[in-house]
């Protein structure tokens, strides 16, 4: 009737069982107490009553598990989250076998929905994401989160954050700016942790080679938020940089997405070089990430000690990824191709190893 891999519950039977088992635990507990009184009062061996008390404890724990699963099922039903197909055998609801995995699936899906809404500018959704800050380290959560949000959402969320911050700065709304800066950093950290796990073929969260390809597509694609146009890589770079100093990204990620970002930066540079001699003094300037391009300073950077919007910093999209650092300097224009910087800007950026595609590992091969 059901395959070996199928895990799920039949409703309303499961609900009935969760309630019945909970009552049974309570009744056995009472029984143990009453029986102890009788046995002890009659001078009989009380061992059966003591063992019944232990049994009541076990049944109570089982009932607790059933209720936790039941609560998850209810929330999944409410949120209209379905995991796979239901079988033909009746009103089965499929769900992960383990409670933790089920919880991760639920949380990952809900967090991805919030992230998608936040990428569309929903401030409440952005605030709601905070709840999931600590979940990104869980591979099950990270995998579901990334697959549900998609490479487009991953790319556009930082873009929207940057655009909103710039908007707040332009209007001089400092309270909103501070809030956005804090939430933005938390969100970028969440994205960074999840993305690093989900793009590492050795991690259980690995979202697949296809996801890496989509990141590249989205990285090269033009996006727009709040009137600012940007290249996807500029937004993704904010995620790459959102860590404590040691990049969490895998060698595979570096080789594929990172390698393509380097190639893309070179292409952009050649285009600018050919198009406008006025930038000749800036010959070695790299593609800035969005915080740099929009003049947001440290407002979206985890490592930056200050969130001072007057302190304009410039950050290379690629440099952050490859070297986990950025170079403070001055820039004003919200387009990445313009700068007021002087020519004396050393940019010792070693050329990364050649990008190879597809990655050496294929999904499933190392899982």
């Amino acid at each position: 009737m059901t395959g070996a891999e199928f895990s799920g519950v039949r409703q309303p039977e499961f609900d009935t069982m969760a309630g019945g088992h909970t009552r049974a635990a309570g009744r056995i507990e009472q029984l143990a107490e009453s029986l102890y009184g009788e046995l002890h009062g009659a001078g009989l061996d009380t061992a059966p009553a003591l063992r019944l008390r232990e049994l009541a404890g076990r049944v109570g724990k089982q009932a607790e598990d059933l209720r936790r699963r039941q609560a998850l099922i209810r929330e999944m039903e409410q949120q209209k989250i379905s995991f796979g197909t239901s079988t033909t055998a009746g009103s089965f609801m499929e769900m992960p076998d383990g409670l933790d995995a089920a919880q991760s699936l639920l949380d990952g899906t809900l967090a991805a929905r919030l992230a998608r809404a936040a990428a569309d500018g929903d401030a409440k959704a952005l605030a709601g994401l905070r709840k999931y800050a600590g979940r990104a380290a869980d591979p099950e959560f990270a995998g579901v989160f990334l697959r549900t949000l998609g490479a487009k959402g991953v790319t556009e969320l930082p873009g929207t954050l940057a655009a909103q911050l710039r908007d707040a700065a332009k209007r001089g709304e400092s309270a909103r700016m501070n809030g956005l800066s804090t939430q933005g950093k938390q969100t970028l950290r969440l994205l960074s942790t999840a993305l690093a796990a989900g793009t590492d073929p050795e991690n259980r969260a690995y979202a697949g080679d296809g996801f890496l390809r989509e990141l590249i597509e989205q990285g090269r694609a033009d996006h727009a938020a709040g009137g600012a146009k940007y290249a996807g890589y500029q937004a993704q770079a904010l995620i790459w940089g959102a860590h404590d100093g040691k990049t969490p990204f895998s060698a595979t990620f570096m080789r594929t997405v990172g390698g393509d970002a380097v190639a893309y930066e070179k292409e952009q540079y050649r285009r600018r070089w050919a198009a406008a001699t006025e930038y000749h003094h800036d010959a070695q300037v790299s593609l800035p990430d969005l915080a740099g391009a929009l003049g947001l300073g440290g407002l979206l950077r985890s490592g930056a000690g200050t969130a001072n919007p007057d302190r304009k910093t410039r950050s290379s999209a690629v440099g952050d990824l490859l070297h986990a650092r950025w170079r403070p300097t001055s820039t004003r224009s919200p387009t990445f191709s313009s700068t007021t910087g002087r020519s004396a800007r050393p940019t010792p950026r070693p050329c990364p190893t050649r990008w190879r595609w597809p990655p050496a590992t294929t999904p499933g091969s190392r899982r």
Partner: protein
Amino acid sequence: MADLDREAMRAVVERIQRLSDEHWWALAPSCRLMEGDAWVGPTGARFGTQVNADQRELRDLLARAVHSARSRLASLPGAS
């Protein structure tokens, strides 16, 4: 405490028997629902096995308590 008379002990036996009767089926609904696939999958299967074992243990303990009370009653001098 151990020197209950026969009448008092008979009452104890009756109360323990009633406790046993009242709780004999306490886990039966869960066992029945699990047989009906209320919850399938590896974890569900483990639960099903466990709840059946728990039911056996429950009944075994109830039977032991009843048996020990009845044995005590039988061992008392048959005064009446």
